[in-house]
C-alpha cells in the first residue's frame, strides 16, 4: 500500500545517467588517464607501486588497461595517515572526513572545493533517481560530523532544492514529532533505525502510513529484501538502497532508481570492477566477487582500484529506467572480518588494540553484536587474568571502565563491557570464537 507520488521531470544533473554507452566509456577513459596522472605526480605510494611494475600513466591505451594498475587497500590509508594519500596541497583542501581504520589510527579522506561539488552532484543524482525533487521535505537522520553520511546527504538534498531538516541521528521521539509536524516526505537514515522509528511511532500511538512520508533513502549498513518489505508494509513508503563508502567519497557512489532493482553505480565518477578476492583476477560482469572502485574525478585523494571488501556482482542487463549505468547487487557480506555497527566500521583487531593498550597482554575476548529496537548493540566479553585481577570491587569496576573507554577511543563505539571468568569464552579448535553477530537481517 505505497503512497502515490507524481513522477517529477528529469533533473538536469541526471542526464549523465542516460549517456549512450560509447560516450560513457569515452568519458571514463579520459577521466581515468587524468586521475592516474594526478596520483602518479602527487602520491608517493602510488608512484612507487607504478615504478615497481615499470608502468607509466602513458601506458594506459584503453579502459581495459586499468587491470594493470596496482590496487589500493584500506591499510594504505592508515599507513599514510593523515596526509599521505593527498594529491592536492592543503591550500586546496577544504574538507576532511574521518572514519575508523583497522587498528588505532583512523582513516582520513580529503576534498577540494571541486570534489565537494562533484560529491554534491552525485547525491543530487542519487536523490533524483528515486524521485526526490524540490518541494520535498527531507529529514536527514544520518549522523552529522566526521561521518560522511550526514553532510553528504545534506548538501545533495539542498542542491536539489529540497527543504532539509538536519536533525542528525538519535532522539527518536523528536524525529517522529518533526516528521509529523513538518509533513516530512523523505527520510535519510539507516534501514535498521527506520524500523525502530516505525515501532516507536506505534508505541506513541502514531502511524507513519497516515503521514505524508513517502520515500526512504537507506544505507550505511547491509540490509535485505525482507527488511525492505517490512519497512514498506509498516510505513507505506518506498524504501531505496543507497551505497557509498568514505574512502571513495561517502554516500552517493550508487543509488537505486524507482524500479528498486539494485543501486546504479555513477560510473562516470566511480569506475567499478569485480575481482576474485583470492586471486585478485578480474571477473566478468554478472560474476560474484569483490567490488573495486576507482575515483575518476577526485582531486584531493584519488583512489585507484580501491578494494572495498564488499562482495557483490555487476548486473550488465539494462534497467527498465533506461540508465546506462550498471547496477550492483545487494551487498550481503564482505571479504574481510569488518563489522558495520550503527554505520560505524569495526574490525576485531581494533578491539584487540584497545584491550592490549590497557592490559599489556591480550586477554581472551569475544565481541557480541545484536540488534535491539532497531539499534545495533556492541558487547565485549573479556576474560579476567591473574595479572589484572583486583581484590576489590572498585578495582575491577575501574578495569571495566578503562577497557570500555579504550575501545570507545579507538572505535568511536561505546561497548557494554563484561568481565568473565577465565576459560569461559567458547573456543573452537583451541581458537576462541571472536565475533558473534546475532543480528538477523
Amino acid at each position, binding site marked *: 500500500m505505497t503512497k502515490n507520488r507524481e513522477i517529477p521531470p528529469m533533473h538536469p544533473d541526471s542526464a549523465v545517467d542516460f549517456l549512450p554507452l560509447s560516450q560513457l566509456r569515452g568519458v571514463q577513459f579520459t577521466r581515468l588517464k587524468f586521475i592516474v596522472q594526478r596520483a602518479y605526480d602527487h602520491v608517493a605510494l602510488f608512484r612507487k607501486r607504478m615504478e615497481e611494475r615499470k608502468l607509466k600513466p602513458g601506458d594506459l591505451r584503453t579502459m581495459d588497461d586499468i587491470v594493470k594498475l596496482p590496487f589500493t587497500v584500506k591499510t594504505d590509508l592508515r599507513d599514510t595517515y593523515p596526509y599521505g594519500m593527498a594529491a592536492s596541497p592543503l591550500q586546496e583542501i577544504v574538507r576532511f572526513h574521518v572514519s575508523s581504520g583497522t587498528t588505532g589510527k583512523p582513516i582520513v579522506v580529503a576534498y577540494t572545493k571541486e570534489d565537494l561539488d562533484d560529491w554534491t552532484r552525485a547525491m543530487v543524482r542519487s536523490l533524483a533517481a528515486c524521485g526526490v525533487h524540490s518541494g520535498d521535505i527531507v529529514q536527514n537522520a544520518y549522523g552529522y560530523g566526521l561521518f560522511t553520511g550526514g553532510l553528504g546527504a545534506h548538501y545533495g538534498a539542498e542542491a536539489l532544492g529540497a527543504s532539509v531538516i538536519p536533525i542528525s541521528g538519535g532522539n527518536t521521539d523528536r524525529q517522529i514529532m518533526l516528521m509529523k509536524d513538518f509533513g516530512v516526505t523523505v527520510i535519510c537514515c539507516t534501514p535498521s533505525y527506520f524500523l525502530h522509528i516505525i515501532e516507536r511511532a506505534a508505541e506513541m500511538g502514531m502511524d507513519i502510513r497516515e503521514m505524508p512520508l513517502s520515500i526512504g533513502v537507506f544505507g550505511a549498513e547491509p540490509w535485505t529484501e525482507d527488511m525492505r518489505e517490512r519497512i514498506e508494509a509498516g510505513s507505506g513508503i518506498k524504501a531505496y538502497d543507497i551505497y557509498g563508502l568514505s574512502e571513495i567519497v561517502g554516500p552517493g557512489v550508487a543509488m537505486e532508481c524507482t524500479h528498486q532493482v539494485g543501486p546504479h553505480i555513477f560510473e562516470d565518477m566511480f569506475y567499478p570492477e569485480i575481482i576474485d578476492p583470492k586471486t585478485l583476477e578480474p571477473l566478468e560482469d554478472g560474476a560474484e566477487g569483490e567490488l573495486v572502485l576507482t575515483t575518476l574525478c577526485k582531486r584531493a585523494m584519488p583512489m585507484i582500484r580501491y578494494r572495498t571488501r564488499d562482495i557483490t556482482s555487476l548486473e550488465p542487463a539494462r534497467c527498465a529506467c533506461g540508465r546506462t549505468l550498471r547496477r550492483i547487487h545487494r551487498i550481503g557480506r564482505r571479504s574481510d572480518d569488518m563489522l558495520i555497527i550503527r554505520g560505524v566500521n569495526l574490525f576485531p583487531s581494533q578491539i584487540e588494540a584497545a584491550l592490549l593498550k590497557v592490559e599489556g597482554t591480550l586477554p581472551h575476548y569475544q565481541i557480541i553484536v545484536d540488534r535491539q529496537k532497531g539499534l545495533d548493540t556492541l558487547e565485549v566479553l573479556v*576474560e*579476567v*587474568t591473574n595479572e589484572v585481577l583486583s*581484590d*576489590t*570491587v572498585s578495582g575491577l*569496576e575501574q578495569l571495566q571502565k578503562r577497557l570500555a573507554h579504550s575501545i570507545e577511543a579507538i572505535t568511536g563505539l561505546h561497548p557494554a563491557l563484561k*568481565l568473565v*571468568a577465565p576459560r569461559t569464552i567458547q573456543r573452537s579448535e583451541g581458537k576462541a570464537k571472536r565475533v558473534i553477530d546475532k543480528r538477523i537481517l
Partner: protein
Amino acid sequence: MKLKQLSVFLENKPGALSEPCRLLAKAGISIQTFSLADTREFGILRLVVEDSDKARRLLQRNGFAVKVTKVVVLEVPDRPGGLAAILDALEGTGINVKYAYGFTVTRENKGVLVFCFDDPDAAIQVLQKQGINIVGVANRPKRTKP
C-alpha cells in the same frame, strides 16, 4: 604478622561459589575464613586458607584467576568494643581500611560464618532440611567469656 589472602574471580551465577570450595575440600585444604564481595555481574571470593601457595596453584591450574594480597589478621577480645579499639588505634594515622570481614570462634571450636541470601527464608528452609544448624533459629551456641 601478614598472611596471604587469595582473591578468586567469580561470575555472579548459581554454582559459581561451589567449584573452588569443592576443589579445596578435595585437596584437603581448610578454609580458615572467607568473604564475598559481589556486584550484579561478578563476585570476588576472598579466602584465608592453611596453605595459600598450594591453594593458589590448585585454583589457577583449574582455570581460576587468583590474586594474592597480603592481609593482617588480628585477635580481638570477643566483647563489645573489640573492633572499635583497633579502629581507635588507627585513628589519625591516615591508614585506611579497604575492607574487613570477621568470624568468631565458639566454645565448640566451630567457625561461625555469615551469609547474605537473596531469599533468606527459602535458604533457611533448605538448610534445615539438610540438618544444618542455623545459628539464631535453633540451639544458638553459647558464647565464651574472655
